[in-house]
């Protein structure tokens, strides 16, 4: 048996493909956080007064809050004064078209497999590329504009559509929501904004690619998606960061507003730098994602594949306010080496006949600790609400951990809540079976893990599903030999 463990240990050694640093001239604020920094960010972005006030309110509130300690993760306290809250590639001049994007930036995204070149429309995906604190390019804007769709960086949206921002910003995740959301509200620098007008089905996948490049900076981006009545959009998010010995902070907020009959599908492949195999470095990923099904029959679906970050603290949630509205959460979270993840969802049923589905697949390898934390709440008025939750954990080796923390709160007697959970190990007998068919151990583990995640992968858009499978393979590389 000890031999088996050694080989599993070997298999868990992984290489991070995206750990390089680009040489981009960057304008960075000195580390530290106070009201002046908040004002400076707002000034830098030439924001209207209302937004500055909003930020300051958030900042003042944040100062009164304490860092949450309830998550099942351990890390030394974050020194928020040692972080730089703004880093942006220096712009040579105002960009008039995508062709004018700095070649070094273009190269950076090319290396990440993200083409900013509209000619190479291979996958039919429009991309908003965010590096450190700012959005550097958004593709296919003109084409989307024909359909009345607004897809641009958050900063541009503030300038060009202040009324929409004012109406929806903070409407799902208020500034007082939690510690990291408050911090984000105070210092967020950019992100993506997406608006789908009434009755429009977005003709292509929209995506934001986040890249941290600068050192000692935090990334605080904000995404706002508004889907008007009867509209549809599928949104993808990807992220990577260089390998560094210091931990870097990433505290994002995503808000989704889905009106009557609108459908929003939000997919994430999160691959921030996870730290090295001894647990040094890596991103602290403290993210608040929430959507509201505001109107009847609205649907919000979260799909996430979380393979990166030293620490993940993330609970994409749905508020099911409209009658017959639907919330879904499909998640694969992998922790390897010393990674820790505390992730799950909240489904808040308020409307009648609301339905939610939670499928969570946690994979732990090395000394990784993986926790599912989920809340299903059925409010007084949520007659005939239903939830189905399934939480499966897969263990590779015997030094990792899987934990499940389900919270169920039912206030309406007609509610139906089902929760299923399982924990299994990648078995030596499964590996041997595949070996005996000519498949080597590493491929065998990848195959078993991918099979385990199938229910989630099939929710991902095609290109993403392929990428996610490969990513799991890379993240598990070396885990049994």
């Amino acid at each position, binding site marked *: 048996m000890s031999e088996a463990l050694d080989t599993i240990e070997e298999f868990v050694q992984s290489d991070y493909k995206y750990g390089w640093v680009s040489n981009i001239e960057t304008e960075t604020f000195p580390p530290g956080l106070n009201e002046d920094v908040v004002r400076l960010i707002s000034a830098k972005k030439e924001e209207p007064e209302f937004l500055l006030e909003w930020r300051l309110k958030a900042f003042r509130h944040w100062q009164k809050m304490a860092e949450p300690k309830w998550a099942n993760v351990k890390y030394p306290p974050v020194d928020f004064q040692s972080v730089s809250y703004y880093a942006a590639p220096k712009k040579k001049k105002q960009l008039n078209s995508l062709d004018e994007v700095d070649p070094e930036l273009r190269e950076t995204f090319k290396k990440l497999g993200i083409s900013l070149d509209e000619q190479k429309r291979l996958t039919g995906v429009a991309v908003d590329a965010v590096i450190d604190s700012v959005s550097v390019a958004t593709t296919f804007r003109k084409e989307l504009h024909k359909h009345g769709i607004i897809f641009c960086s958050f900063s541009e949206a503030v300038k060009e559509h202040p009324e929409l921002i004012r109406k929806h910003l903070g409407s799902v995740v208020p500034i007082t929501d939690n510690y990291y959301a408050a911090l984000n509200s105070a210092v967020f620098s950019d992100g993506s904004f997406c608006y789908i007008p009434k009755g429009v089905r977005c003709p292509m996948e929209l995506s934001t690619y986040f890249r941290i490049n600068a050192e000692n900076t935090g990334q605080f981006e904000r995404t706002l998606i508004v889907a008007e009545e009867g509209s549809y959009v599928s949104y993808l998010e990807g992220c990577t960061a260089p390998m560094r010995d210091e931990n870097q902070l990433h505290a994002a907020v995503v808000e989704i507003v889905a009106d009557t009959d609108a459908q929003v599908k939000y997919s994430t492949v999160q691959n921030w730098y996870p730290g090295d195999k001894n647990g040094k470095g890596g991103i602290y990923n403290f993210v608040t994602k929430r959507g509201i099904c505001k109107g009847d029959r609205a649907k919000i679906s979260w799909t996430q594949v979380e393979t990166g970050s030293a620490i993940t603290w993330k609970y994409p949630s749905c508020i099911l306010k409209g009658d017959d509205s639907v919330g879904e959460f499909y998640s694969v979270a992998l922790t390897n080496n010393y990674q820790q993840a505390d992730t799950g969802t909240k489904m808040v049923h308020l409307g009648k006949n609301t339905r939610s589905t939670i499928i969570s697949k946690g994979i732990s390898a090395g000394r990784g600790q993986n926790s599912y934390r989920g809340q299903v709440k059925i409010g007084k008025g949520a007659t005939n609400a239903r939830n189905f939750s399934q939480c499966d954990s897969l263990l590779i080796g015997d030094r990792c951990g899987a934990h499940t923390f389900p919270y169920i709160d039912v206030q309406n007697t007609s509610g139906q809540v089902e929760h299923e959970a399982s924990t299994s190990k990648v078995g030596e007998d499964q590996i041997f079976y595949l070996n005996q*068919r000519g498949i080597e151990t590493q491929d065998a583990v990848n195959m078993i893990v991918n099979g*385990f995640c199938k229910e989630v992968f099939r929710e991902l858009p095609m290109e993403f599903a392929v990428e996610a499978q490969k990513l799991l393979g890379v993240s598990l590389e070396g885990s049994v030999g």
Partner: protein
Amino acid sequence: MSKQLIEIKNLSANINGKEILKGINLTVNEGEVHAIMGPNGSGKSTLGYVLAGREGYEVTGGEILYRGKDLVEMAPEERAREGLFLAFQYPVEIPGVNNTYFLRAAYNEQRKHRGEEEMDAVDFLAVVREKMKLLELPDAMMKRSVNEGFSGGEKKRNEIFQMAVLDPKLSILDETDSGLDIDALKIVATGVNRLKSPTNASIVITHYQRLLNYIVPDYVHVLFDGRIIKSGGKELALQLEEKGYDWITGKETVAAR
């Protein structure tokens, strides 16, 4: 003269330090079917696992030459790619992994090993269809996950199906008859018989004689306490059926004194 496929010489093997095989001698040539019989705990399955290279089954003495190569030195996946196939007594479930996908991966590992190009999904489907017809398997089986939710009989048929697709040189069938009703047994046996050729061989491990009504062996060996204590033709199986294992094992005990 037929070619020698595997030669097992004075093989002994341990599991967790306990000696299970205590000097096995067996030679199998191309075109032959060998049955290994014996009471529970005699080492039959261990022999299968040792040949397939399962971890924890330690060869402590003797040697195994497989197609002229030292088998013990080869990793389990290499053995498989070299045409050694073990039909498992208890096939393992691999949830979420599509049966066809899995089998194509296995098939392509063999092809790569032989220096051939990998086969794409469309061409592979044609191979699969042909073999399914041969074994009278339902289409649905290929769309399901590997052995997941399969009945005992379906699992065994899936083993024989994999064997048909991978077309091994040497098949080891470990208690393929256990847990099968007579109809399933016939289907499995028919499959094995149809796959028989002058260039491949099988070792059929079984506790009962009844499988050998359908798969007729050229040789029958009785394994007891880690040794082959008697070998003979197919009539030996019938004698065992009639007289039980005590007939030989008892004799052996006496002879040992």
